[in-house]
């Protein structure tokens, strides 16, 4: 079942400038694996060498930051939207 993933501007070169792409999987981790297969190079921009989400990348399932859900193991279902959002500076 395809899940919609929202891609931030700096990563759209890797998705053919698509703002929203579709991926398959039952967890956020599976979604990212699916994305890497379709768009090679995307994975390493989101995940570090240990496979964890990079510190200055925020991943949301609908409105919730996955760090406060089950991280990469957070389950997703049809109709959910995943957003990848670089951290914002300021202050």
């Amino acid at each position, binding site marked *: 079942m395809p899940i919609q993933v929202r891609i931030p*501007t*700096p990563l759209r070169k890797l998705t053919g400038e698509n703002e929203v792409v579709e991926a398959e999987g039952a967890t956020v981790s599976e979604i990212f694996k699916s994305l890497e297969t379709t768009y090679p190079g995307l994975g390493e*921009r989101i995940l*570090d060498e240990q496979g964890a989400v*990079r*510190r*200055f*990348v925020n991943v949301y399932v609908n409105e919730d*930051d996955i*760090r*406060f859900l089950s991280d990469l193991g957070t389950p997703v279902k049809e109709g959910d939207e995943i957003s990848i959002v*670089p*951290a*914002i*500076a*300021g*202050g």
Partner: protein
Amino acid sequence: MNEDRPFFSNLKCRECGRLYPKEAIHICEFDFGPLEAAYDYDAIRSSISRERILSRPQTMWRYREFLPIDGAPTVGAQVGFTPLVKADRLAAALGVKELYIKNDTVNYPTLSFKDRVVSVALSRARELGFKVVACASTGNLANSVAANAAAAGLRSYVLIPADLEQSKVLGSLVYGTNVIGIHGPYDQVNRLCSEIAGKYGWGFVNVNLRPYYAEGSKTMGFEIAEQLGWKLPRHTVVPMASGSLLTKIHKAYKEFIHTGIIEDQPFTIHGAQASGCSPISEAMKKQVEIVKPVPKPETIVKSLAIGTPADGYYAIRTMKDTGGSAEDVSDAEVIEGIRLLAEYAGIFAETAGGVTVASARKLIESGKIPRDESIVLCITGHGLKTAEAVQGKCGEPRLIKPSLREFEALVADEVAAAAN
């Protein structure tokens, strides 16, 4: 100035170390880590000395080798070198031996530490050719951008939460800047500014110019070390909003040690927040490095009300690395802190200053700051900017007719008591 061998060499990703040119960029293209100014410390070491610093005017620019601009500063040349006050009566009140106030309530020209960061950011903005400068602000930064841009002849836009203190709104409007109030908390103002910065090509001091801006905060640390007689306080207590100031005071201390200006010595940095918006303090207390955002800050300390602090992670790492702690205080404790500082040191600070004093008191009482070691409290903004926070909390004047009899009746008891 050493024009042949620049001291300021590159921007560098704090996460992966990739180097970037010295442009108006602030995040790493690869991993989105923040970019930071990098220096040629060998060049600095061979150029700078205590004597060289002492020979220069008493402003923050006496440490110019450590600041990320190429030429001479063109904005804010007179900023900084605020007093470091030995506060013996406040020390006695808090039960400690040696206490100092780094008093940025009298920083020039807008009475907060933000003049330090803005003078660097706007000097760099000019070097990069910007004609319009802007910021997202909780108030003090807006005041400073407005004033310094006016003096420099730059057009400016300041974006603030719509519900800021009246003095802080007026303190921007008076300079003829474009003040835009946003219905929403600071974090939403910030998010909007990151979109505007990309679209309009303006120099946002704390977005695309942030690597330059943030370095200005180091001068508070350099001044503390110089004013203490070229040594560091054992403990430094710093208020935290984004967490940037705390990390930059640490960087300043390290740079002075690294370049041989001061000897290597132990120091500890502690952070202070308001309990109504304390994401960094909460993470520190829970011993985690993930800073949980505060969606709706609720505190009178509006200048520190940043729910998603950009440098939260680095602030936590700095406190841990130096053996420091974080503390947070209620609004009532903030008022107590403001009054303590005023009544025992003669310094009227804004709400963030109340946070610092009240948090320091807690850190002392819990033993995290030993009573016999030297302490510096960083007081970052003037009390008149947040006057409504203490309005009605400091008593009222006693009113009489212009009559000696009425005056004598009024003070008789207290004069007698004071004479005994």
